[in-house]
């Protein structure tokens, strides 16, 4: 008998009832979020020591390059940016920047667009696609994330995508950190040491 059949033979049971599984999700216990004020709820979580992210606000997408330049200047970093090949960024004027699509092993700054922000935790929700690589978001020292205010949802339950799943669906909640030495928190363990969220308040992103 194959290992598969041997294991399954010991685990025979009637199939689970969908209703029973669904009932397990009724009215979950979760931190309260003021649904009428998602932006400030989200920003409050973003600023928690455990999340440790900074933020900026822009009125329109065309303001994005200037906001990134502002941030990189403040951080004493050059205007060099690993930028995803996302057509939604087309309206931006990147003439002040040196852009590249593939991240270097010691990449300094990377831009990404989050599909959602989650107010409950200050999480940013991403999926991989041909226009959204994953690795640059982990290699970079400064992770700069564009998030439309309209894309802030209340709870983690709002994060999953229905239907067929992308190769990777991932939630980023703060900077790379570790407490592996004496339980002491240190930022920038392996991934980004800095997370900077740029909220797009006016308008919405063009659809890809």
């Amino acid at each position: 008998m194959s290992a598969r059949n041997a294991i399954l033979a010991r685990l025979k049971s009637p199939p689970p009832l969908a209703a029973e599984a669904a009932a397990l999700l009724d009215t979950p216990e979760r931190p309260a979020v003021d649904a009428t004020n998602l932006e400030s709820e989200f920003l409050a979580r973003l600023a928690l020591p455990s999340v440790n992210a900074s933020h900026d606000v822009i009125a329109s997408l065309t303001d994005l390059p200037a906001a990134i330049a502002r941030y990189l200047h403040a951080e004493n970093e050059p205007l060099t940016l690993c930028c995803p090949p996302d057509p939604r960024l087309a309206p931006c004027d990147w003439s002040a920047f040196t852009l590249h699509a593939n991240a270097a092993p010691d990449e300094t700054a990377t831009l990404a667009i989050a599909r959602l922000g989650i107010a409950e935790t200050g999480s940013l929700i991403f999926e991989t696609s041909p226009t959204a690589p994953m690795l640059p978001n982990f290699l970079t020292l400064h992770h700069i994330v564009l998030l439309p205010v309209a894309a802030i949802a209340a709870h983690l339950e709002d994060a999953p995508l229905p239907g067929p799943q992308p190769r990777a669906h991932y939630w980023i909640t703060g900077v790379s950190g570790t407490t592996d030495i004496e339980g002491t928190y240190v930022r920038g363990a392996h991934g980004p040491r800095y997370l900077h969220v740029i909220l797009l308040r006016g308008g919405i992103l063009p659809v890809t």
Partner: protein
Amino acid sequence: MSDFTTPSFLNRADAALADPILKIAVERTAGTAEAKRAIAIDAFPDFEAARTRAAAIKDHVIAHLGPYLEQFEASAIAAGAQVHWAQTADEACQIVMNICKAAGAKSVARSKSMLGEEIGLPHALEEAGIGRVETDLAEHIIQLADERPSHIIWPAMHKTREQVSALFKAKHRTPHEEETIAAMAQSARRELRAKMLGADVGISGANFLIADTGAVCTVTNEGNAELSLVPPRVHIVTAGIEKIVPSMPHAIPMLRMLARSATGAALTQYTTFYTGPRRSGDRDGPEEMHIVLVDNGRTKMREEGLADMLRCIRCGACMNHCVVFRQIGGHAYGGTYPGPMGAVLTPALDGLASNRDLAHACTLNGKCQEVCPVKIPLPTLLKGWREKSWREGLEPTSMRAGLGLWAWVATRPALYRLGTGLAIRAIRLLGRKGWIASLPLAGGWTRYRDLPKPAAQSFMTQYQREQRK
């Protein structure tokens, strides 16, 4: 030396107790974790109801584990992953080695997984001559020190910053100069970055397996999982079969409990759901994804009264709050998993005969059960092992005889009164000024503490005399 215990556990415990550095190290990490968890739980509404829900989700899965595993398998295959099944640790390692061999792997990047430790993956890779890069900071420390993890969340919790500093200075190419924990972490970052990116295969465990999508969920705070699993050509997942949840929404209440119970955070920094290999047009991600579903005693646990233990989500709260763990650390337990959850799991994984001490080295104070996010009745399960050990004749003869004699007398109240009267008189002879500093047959007590002298007459004797008045 007590005759109630097997020397190996006692020796390890004694060595741990004699190590003042270990005590400091454990206290620093577990103490911090305990305090942070308390703050997180206080801030979480209705934590008790959330525990009940988390336990119910896992119970539901464990009751229907077979169908859910088949659903997971079908979904993962549909997403392009290859699914393998292993009944034992050896089978699991063999499957992983075969995949590595087929991929021509010279080096693998490992993202910390307790299942990997449980099945002996580090050792198997070494045997196969495949280079291994441990990417979790603590596992990296353990690898450099050639040791074993002492905690499931903080594998290097037994090491102080001073010890880590010395280790990095000896082993890193460009070690830190400043004596801070931040500088040490940077030293590891420099050391590991290139090695991670150069690996042929990335190996991880799974915090959750999502039945309806075939996704594998990992959580880390360092981001080392993603850096280990995205660049290599092959991603191998080794996961215990109990890691299933019906859907991603079912993982969410579990994730809320896991982070809060482990580190006191609302969520881990990085939570990733991997569904199959790289898609057409994707700019990164592995070409192959393999998922090895490992039983290694879990079906047996389910059949033999340990189904509750399969709820465990490996948060480590039980050990952080265990008075025994806090004194002896993780290595003294001698298994892959330390602390209360380890004391339940190790006899199931490695056999009861050589691990019977683990069930006894517990005060049954119930704190572990109180903090468990999935309400595992750990003290009850430990008592279950004690009972099995007694039934199978593994308990020491002196213990069996002593308890047998006492129970024989105690079930005969008149004889018991006579016996206690005599015992009181005998014991009182050894006392001075109310206290006994040394009592034969009770050296375990009087070696470290004084024993109050019993009263001149038992309660029952005094009470009956009063009643007759």
